């Protein structure tokens, strides 16, 4: 696929997403809004898993920290300013990622997977057991933040359509930002670390610092998703930090094909789609989901993003090898 067709397809996808609120079906608007939030979350994890080669199984922690931060920083019966709570909650999740990163990045491979999971569980207990969270019931965010700047209100997050477009704009912003980062020398180093960390070290890069920067950045971007999630649903519970949440987002990244931002967005749609469809069949939808995952690993290495390439190869009789 050349860059022109790819750009046209992306813009077409964006146009379709932009039309969703026009349908007026509030159920679907909220569902797609939730999916877009998860897509942002999955893209933030893809920076680690797909581009830097760090398989984090505890990414829900940063999602949850930002979600709790909005709920705690907002006054109980008044709207907080968006321009204060958004940077504050994202900053807090980035800070949490920085601190955790200092520990977990000392490990590699299987250790890294287990240790990130353990730290996410620690974060879960912080919000579950201490006064920082509201126990297992969670906290309500009674009033959504306001976008007011000196009396002027550009949009209202109370309005579902405005909220939807705000989320879509954040998705595009995160997508462009990550694309920009990955083109930069910093992003090139991350990709280099993924393919061979020792070589990068031999070339004189202090890879720990790069990995820590990536981990912190991914935590902050995951925080944007957590912030939006809390605003959409109006309450936060420790479940947001649970390891199922970390597992699900990892699933989206892998389903979409790691290291491919558009694929990861598609992964988020496929995941919520499966959840909805299987959920409408049976209460035990996780059984079907688990079966699909197991089958996907056994029969579909490379994720959804590998499918076009595979079709192309089979059409060309296996001759193409790009």
């Amino acid at each position, binding site marked *: 696929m050349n860059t022109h067709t790819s750009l046209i397809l992306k813009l077409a996808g964006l146009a379709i997403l932009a039309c969703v609120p026009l349908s007026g079906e509030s159920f679907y608007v909220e569902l797609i809004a939730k999916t877009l939030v998860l897509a942002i979350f999955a893209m933030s994890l893809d920076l680690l898993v797909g581009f830097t080669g760090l398989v984090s199984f505890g990414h829900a922690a940063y999602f949850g920290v930002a979600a709790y931060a909005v709920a705690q920083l907002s006054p109980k019966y008044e709207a907080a300013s968006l321009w204060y709570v958004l940077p504050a909650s994202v900053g807090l999740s980035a800070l949490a990622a920085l601190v955790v990163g200092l520990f977990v990045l000392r490990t590699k491979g299987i250790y890294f997977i287990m240790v990130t999971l353990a730290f996410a569980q620690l974060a879960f*207990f912080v919000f579950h057991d201490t006064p920082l969270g509201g126990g297992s019931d969670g906290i309500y965010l009674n009033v959504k933040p306001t976008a007011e700047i000196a009396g002027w209100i550009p949009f209202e997050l109370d309005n579902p359509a405005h909220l939807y477009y705000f989320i879509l704009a954040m998705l595009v912003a995160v997508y462009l930002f990550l694309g920009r980062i990955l083109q930069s020398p910093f992003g090139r180093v991350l990709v280099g670390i993924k393919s061979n960390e020792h070589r990068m070290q031999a070339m004189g890069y202090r890879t720990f610092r790069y990995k820590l920067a990536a981990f912190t950045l991914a935590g902050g971007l995951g925080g944007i998703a957590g912030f939006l999630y809390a605003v959409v649903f109006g309450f936060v519970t420790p479940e947001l930090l649970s390891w199922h949440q970390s597992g699900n987002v990892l699933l989206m990244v892998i389903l979409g094909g790691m290291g491919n931002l558009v694929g990861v967005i598609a992964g988020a749609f496929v995941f919520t789609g499966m959840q909805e469809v299987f959920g409408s069949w049976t209460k035990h939808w996780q059984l079907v989901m688990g079966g699909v995952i197991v089958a996907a690993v056994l029969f579909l290495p490379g994720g959804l993003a590998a499918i076009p390439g595979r079709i192309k190869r089979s059409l060309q009789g296996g001759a193409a090898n790009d």
Partner: protein
Amino acid sequence: MDFVSFLIQTLNSLQYGLLLFLVASGLTLVFGIMGIINLAHGSFYMIGAYLAFVLASTTGSLFTAILLGIPLALIFGALLEWALFSHLYKRDHLEQVLLTYGLILIFEELRSLLVGDEVHGVDIPAMFSGSIQLSEVLSYPVYRLAISAVCIVLAVALYFVIQRTRLGMMIRAGNHDRTMVEALGININMIYRVVFALGVALAALAGMLASPISSVFPNMGSHVLIISFVIVVIGGIGSVWGALAAALIVGFADTFGKVLLPELSGMVVYIVMAGVLLWRPEGIFKKG
């Protein structure tokens, strides 16, 4: 804390730590020898506990349930290795994480379909149902002592098998260098299957033993899984004796953490792990 309650907490720590060792030893062997990260290992603990509940309520005795349950768990483990895990050896960790995560969902839903979502109790066998009087008001249940004893016997047996038998020699060699073992004409696939089945059976046995004291409830495997990960991290991957020491550390940290720092109870274990990571990121017992 007076002496008697200190003694009780010490015994509790030992019992909890030894039980965790049963789960973590299989996990660390599967990591070390097969290079597989198995998120579904906690599910084997859950399956063991539910097996104990179902078998004990049909046969009327936890003893019979355990005697029937162990061979069932071994067969289940061998089948699972043959059907699924044997396809994972050459895959990367991410795919292993994915497949075993899918397995957790499947096991939990099957559990929900077959046994339901209620919390169940399992009766302590009559001969262990008493308790030992330690002071006028405090006593200690015999069943917990019995669990510790069973775990110690198993740990000794595991030591004997790994250090003194031909199978153990092959397992140790496989842990060290699997290509070399294959080159020497040893059927490594058979070793893998045995180790995996053994790991499943140990985790299931831990679940069966724990069922009367912890009761049997949905998602009981996930907490044990994460704690076992912490143990493997502290002890070092592939080290069974590291797992034993780490399991005891975790048992003591968790039990005394609950008594001394109740508001931090859930976190103490993870804080210990963070400390170990700063000190020795490869685990306490990892050589070189």
